[in-house]
């Protein structure tokens, strides 16, 4: 353990201390799991998505397990951007964490207003959710269309006061790289993918859906191969960093995303399985690099031989 590993990742003007980030919606507002995973130990914490006003989300049940997967239909319940700035962000920054705000809206103007509101705050970067499947009129409508993603991205970039903007993409686009390219051309500093995959589960005997919202978003190990492909497609097309997520449960999973070109990764469902997961993955990543004789992740990143 004597060698110093360089795990730093650069996203525009921002330097992350390592490539392991918490995925939005799986790490609360950043401090809830601090006893198991100090937020400052991660490359960044991406907080639960916030909208202009608090949203109540969907009714219960909001969760169902499927084979190696987790369906959720929380519906973006959140405290709203004002409470986030006032209550959640200060202690997270005080803890020394690099903090990303995940923002969500129904129209480009709402994204613009969220970006403007967050521009003068200590938040380190914005992640723009253009892709959550769990709200009736948000997400997918923007997320699958390159022109719409470009429009939303531009609205955020023009109003965020120069903070790095990460655009979180849906796996639903027929040509995900084209959507990612639209975000890049509109000024995104990075893209992250994949968000959950629209899915459903039913109770056969009860003749009912397992989620009150009927449909939800699938995450967890079941979606990893889908995510890996889409990250690979984007990484070889874009010149901005690609942040990979989708079912990462182990250091090996994280390293696989980096191998296909991800600059950094997010850990989501695995944190719901065990709050220590992001730290364990970070430690496992270090150990693998030492074992393989790597000093720097650039020696692995995008080196897939095809």
């Amino acid at each position, binding site marked *: 353990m004597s060698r110093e590993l360089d795990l730093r990742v650069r996203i525009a003007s921002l330097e992350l201390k390592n490539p392991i980030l918490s995925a939005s*919606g*799986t*790490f*609360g*507002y950043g*401090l*809830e*799991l*601090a*006893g*198991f995973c100090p937020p400052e130990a991660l490359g960044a914490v991406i907080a*639960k998505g916030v909208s202009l006003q608090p949203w*109540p*989300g969907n*009714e*219960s*049940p*909001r*969760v*169902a*397990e499927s*084979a*190696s*997967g*987790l369906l*959720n239909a*929380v519906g973006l*319940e959140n*405290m709203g951007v004002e*409470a986030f700035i006032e*209550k*959640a962000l200060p*202690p997270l920054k005080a803890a020394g964490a690099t903090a990303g705000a995940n923002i969500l809206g129904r129209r480009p103007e709402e994204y613009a207003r969220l970006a403007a509101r967050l521009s003068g705050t200590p938040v380190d970067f914005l992640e723009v959710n253009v892709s959550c499947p769990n709200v009736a009129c948000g997400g997918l409508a923007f997320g699958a269309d390159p022109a719409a993603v470009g429009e939303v991205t531009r609205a955020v970039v023009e109003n965020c006061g120069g903070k790095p903007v990460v655009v979180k993409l849906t796996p639903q686009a027929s040509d995900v790289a084209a959507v990612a390219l639209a975000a890049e051309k509109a000024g995104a500093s990075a893209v992250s993918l994949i968000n959950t995959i629209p899915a459903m589960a039913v109770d056969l005997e009860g003749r009912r859906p397992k989620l*009150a919202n009927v449909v939800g978003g699938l995450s*967890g*190990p079941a979606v990893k191969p889908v995510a890996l492909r889409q990250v690979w497609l984007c990484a070889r097309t874009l010149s901005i960093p690609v942040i990979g997520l989708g*079912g990462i*449960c*182990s250091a*090996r*999973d994280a390293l696989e995303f980096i191998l296909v070109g991800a600059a950094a990764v997010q850990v989501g*469902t*695995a*944190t*719901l*399985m*065990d*709050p*220590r997961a992001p730290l364990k993955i970070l430690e496992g990543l270090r150990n693998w690099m030492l074992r393989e004789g790597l000093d720097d992740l650039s020696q692995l990143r995008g080196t897939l031989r095809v």
Partner: protein
Amino acid sequence: MINEISVSGPLIREVQVLENRPLAQGACLMTMDCPEIAALAEPGHFVKIRAWPEAEDGGRPLLDRPFSIHRARDGQLSILYRILGPATYQMSLASAGSLVKVSGPLGRSLAEADLNPAAGFYLAAGGIGLAPMALALDWLGGRGAATLFYGERRGAAQVDRAWLESWAGDLSATAEASPAYGRTGLLTGPLEEALKRQIRPIFACGPTPMLAAVSDLGGRYGTPVWVSAEAGMACGFGVCLTCSLPLKGGGRFRVCREGPVLDGLTVDWGKIG
């Protein structure tokens, strides 16, 4: 919600199963050697359990499962559970000596409720809602009289009456469609008769319609009702919001953080599917 952030609290431990046995009709009791978590346990607290291997690919089932703490004493922690799906089936296979992962204690307990135990208590348990009642009785101890009202939906005994009587003290047991326990009907019948004789606070755990009915009874008789609520849950630590349930007059609570024990009169039972 954000005010509930804490940086200490629950523990995650790998512990040994001491005993894991069926009680009747798919209800089982698992006892573990778990001194650190047992020492912190209060009635209504829950734990997450994983009685199957962790794996690099996430393993199956994926998520640990939440269970009320049934009893915590002498360094031992026990869980009363019903075999309902693959996770509880896996749990039922764990033999004495095997290792299971336990996270907890989680949530708010009855001990944090604003109440006076000396006033006595009615405990209302529907089916597997018996789970937190032994710890509640231990906690009440000599501080106040308690009567347990136990009701079963399916008419056939799920738990052994002798086992129930071994810890339940003053007991009224009913089965919905048969005289399995000597009395047919819903537990709200004898509970209401008792309230007519003497008003006491209520602690209830069971299916949503039962919690709604018991909360309604409490409202009508003007006595506090503390319920142990239940919802599908992923993380158990307050971050995923999958267990969020509606409150009357708007607002929501997380079963895993603001619950599971809370004032039943504040919950909007009608909206819970």
